[in-house]
């Protein structure tokens, strides 16, 4: 909800500051010590569990990826057996053929250079997409016209739920205007609700896949604080800080054990209904 407020304030700012101009400038940024970055995800689906390990690099450096090879990566359920990952290419570690169940805590360990970085994540039950609906958006100002999708869920009343929505057009992931679509059920616990999206619009011929991830609170907080320092630059935070990681020992990144549901439709098919 706070994001929405920021969004509205941003809109007003766009309106008044249409007089503004932007230019690329040179900024002298001093280097810093490299920090380790871990992006670890696992689901209850058949997808392989993937852990990406890398390091930070100078901001204006040409190298975006700075993969870390030779780390020892493993995942275990809280009271389960440790499963080790295999490095399939530099910095990419995978575990195939293992299925995790919802309702448990999982622990990811990444050992590198004598330090073990650990994080815990709780895998919530799947919350299915009950329906999708489309509404036509006229567009205004800088915003294009087209269809926007609403993703309906029956939010389980018994507990706190956190969602992340991802959208794919013709199989390609799109970033919803660089924004991360996150919801906490704080304001709609136990209700049937349509979760909206933001900037992107879809056209009639698009084949759209909506992925509804049921994530835990730590993952939600990570992406919420990640969004504060990425996405649209309007209304930038006055004191940007690194996102809140669930890894210890100063690692950047996150570990998310999540479940998801997907629905695919062709926009025009839906409209005929």
């Amino acid at each position, binding site marked *: 909800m*706070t994001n929405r407020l920021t969004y*509205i304030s941003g809109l*007003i700012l766009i309106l*008044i500051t249409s*007089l*503004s*101009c*932007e*230019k*690329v*400038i*040179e*900024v002298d*940024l*001093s*280097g*810093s*010590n490299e*920090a380790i*970055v871990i*992006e670890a995800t696992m689901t209850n689906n058949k997808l392989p569990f993937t852990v990406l390990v*890398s*390091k*930070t*690099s*100078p*901001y*204006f*450096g*040409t190298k*975006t990826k700075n993969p870390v090879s030779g780390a020892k990566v493993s995942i275990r359920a809280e009271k389960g057996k440790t499963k080790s990952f295999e490095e399939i290419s530099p910095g990419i570690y995978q575990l195939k053929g293992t299925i995790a169940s919802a309702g448990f805590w999982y622990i990811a360990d990444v050992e590198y250079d004598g330090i073990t970085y650990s994080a815990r994540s709780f895998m919530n039950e799947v919350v299915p997409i009950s329906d999708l609906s489309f509404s036509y958006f*006229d567009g*205004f*100002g800088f915003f294009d016209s087209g269809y926007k999708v609403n993703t309906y869920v029956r939010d389980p009343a018994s507990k706190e739920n956190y969602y992340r929505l991802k959208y794919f057009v013709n199989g390609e*992931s799109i*970033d919803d205007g*660089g924004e991360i679509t996150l919801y906490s059920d704080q*304001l*709609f616990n*136990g*209700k049937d609700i349509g979760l*909206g999206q933001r900037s992107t619009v879809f056209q009639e011929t698009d084949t759209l896949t909506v992925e509804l991830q049921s994530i835990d609170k730590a993952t939600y*907080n990570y*992406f919420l604080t*990640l969004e504060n*320092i*990425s996405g649209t*630059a309007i209304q*930038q*935070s*006055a*004191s*940007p*800080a*690194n*996102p*809140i990681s669930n890894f210890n020992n*100063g690692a950047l*990144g*996150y570990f998310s054990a999540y479940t998801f549901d997907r629905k695919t439709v062709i926009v025009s098919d839906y409209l005929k209904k």
Partner: protein
Amino acid sequence: MGHRFLYIFILMIMFSGAFSQNKYTLSGTITDAESGEDLAGALLSVQNSSYNTICNPYGFYSITIPEGNFNIEIQFVGYENQVLKVNLHSNQVIDFTMKPVSYELENIEVRGKSADHNVTSLGMGSLKINPKQIENIPVLFGERDLIKVMQLLPGVKQAGEGNAGFYVRGGGLDQNLILLDEAPVYNASHLLGFFSVFNSEAIRDAELLKGSIPAEYGGRASSVLDIRMKEGNLKDYHTTGNVGLISSNLSFEGPIKEDVSSFMVSARRTYADLFLNFAPDKDLREAQLYFYDLNLKTNFKLNEKNRLFISGYLGRDKFRMEDQFGFDWGSKTATIRLNHTFNEKLFSNSSFIFSNYSYQIDLSGDNDVLLGSVIQDFNLKQDFSWYLNAKNTLKFGANLIFHKIVPGEVEASPGSVYNTLAVRPRRALETAVYFSNSQQVSERLKIYYGLRLAFFSNVGPGDFYSFDSKGNLIKTNSYDQFIWVKTQGGPEPRLALNYKIGRDDAVKASYNRIYQFIHLLSNSTSSTPTDVWLPSSDNVKPQISDQWSVGYFRNSHRNMIESSVELYYKNLHNQIDYRNGADLVFNSTVEAELVFGRGWAYGAEFLFRKNEGKLTGWFGYTWAQTMRQFDLINQVDQNSKGLSFPARQDMRHDISVVAMYDLARKLKISATWVYNTGNAVTFPNGKYEVDGRIIGYYTQRNGYRMPDYHRLDFGLTWIRKQTAKFESSWNFSVYNAYGRENAYFISFRQNKENPEKTEAVQISLFKIIPSISYKFKF
């Protein structure tokens, strides 16, 4: 502490009164001869002596002097001096009226408000501005704004390009007590900060106190901006209007009953949204985006001894996009006050004050839901001024404020997909009592000593929370109505002295302690409509500031040129920041998200000011440093204590030059130039990839600097017509005349063509903004 202070206080007054001879009191009012309005701040002095006094904000003066024959001189900026022979052999009441300086007289020497006030007063770091004086200073969009002029003074820093928010001597945006006719204004800006809520046509005068803050003020740690509305002409009706490019205002004033009661009403509205009519897009054409202000004031002389004032302010910003959403915010204030003169020495002011700030977001379009927040005060205030004798002026009084804060509320209609959610309102009682004395110890030495006892009590009904060290909620304690939960506060000593070295120079020093009990939580670079005020509680200690300052003040060229150097050191305790990712709005346990630390600031301020002649204006320079330290911010690793870092408003050098020149009798030109080194800002030190996007890696809070800022503005006022019946003038101004692209902010992003590349992008707001406005008065 309190008792000891009281004892010393009584002792000092007794001591100073010990040599009394036959003395009598001269008292009365000083008013404008044409409009009948009070002249607060007018100086009354006894020629060839050191006796003088200044009219209080209600135009009342009182002075006690030895028996004899005197020449009494009264002076006020913009008015002709007056000298009156007085044979004082008993207590006397004399009401003075002063004639405003007419334009024909302009070349005659016009002494400013007590020409040597800069040197003789106890005030340090204080500045009074009346809208007339600044009429010719160029401004953004042609909208005259007192706050923007204040920002051109040493020690006051603007909160971003074109912004009405300000920082005083290293204090926070929320540490300024902004009063409109005694009512605190919680959000003093419109349209995301580009305009202040103070319509200058409705304002009589404004005074900013940044150094020595007298004991009658309290509640904000860094400064006081005391703004008084016009009272209304007691003799004639007048209409004043301004037509500008983006806003217009219209004011009307006059007597209800001549010399007994009067009124003033002033309205302003922007019409920026009219431009939207030209937009190609239908939704944009139908969008609303404007603000309005309404100021009202009326006063009644009930009889010789009593005078009643009623004033009010209402202002609101509105933003609406079709039925999709609406967003509006604004303040309301109301003040009812009674001046009572007990006798020639004792003056009282009783006020009842109401203040309210709220915002509301209407998402009825898709979701049938209203979001909102309110902060509301009821305030009772009693002040006494006791002009005890020639050497002592006592002030004492009490203040009682009932605060109610609704941090966030979601109101969903029954069919809505959202649940109704209310973060329970917080209620609190702020109380203060104070007394002070300003005492002429000797011919050369004047001292001021005061004590304010300020307390803040959280009261039921409400929920209060206990947290563990990690910020997890352990327990919720619910309290019923009228239950006292927690009281905090303490004594606030206020001291000042003025030692006159020679006829034209003086050394001044002051010390203040101030408690601040309500705090603004904001993570944006300027104030925004959705800022949340948070009261102190069992989890939040009050902010405390201690400020020491010394200064050297000198006037030259028969008081035509004022100069001063001031040094200050300020210590700020219990400063508030919050954890990364905190939800500040719809969060009943927001206190768990807070982190506490300390701050300190020091600096030197230089001001040269020329108040008379064809060329007037000032040159100001500030050197300053502002730091903060929090255990949980800017840590090297999770287990170490956070390193100190420069505050956002930290800025080493700041120069402002303001010049106004009377080219001809009907043509005035002006220019301002500002320069400052960049303020502190956080930039990434490295980058990495997560979730398919490039993210900045941050290691130091405010470790970098924005580029230097500088800007030149021009203004020209052409008086078309000036007769007793009708006046009109045109004003042209150019903001940022040489088109400097000053950085509003700098963001870091992936290059659009080549996402592998990262770049820094500077956003600048206003390049060259010309504007024109027309003013008329009849």
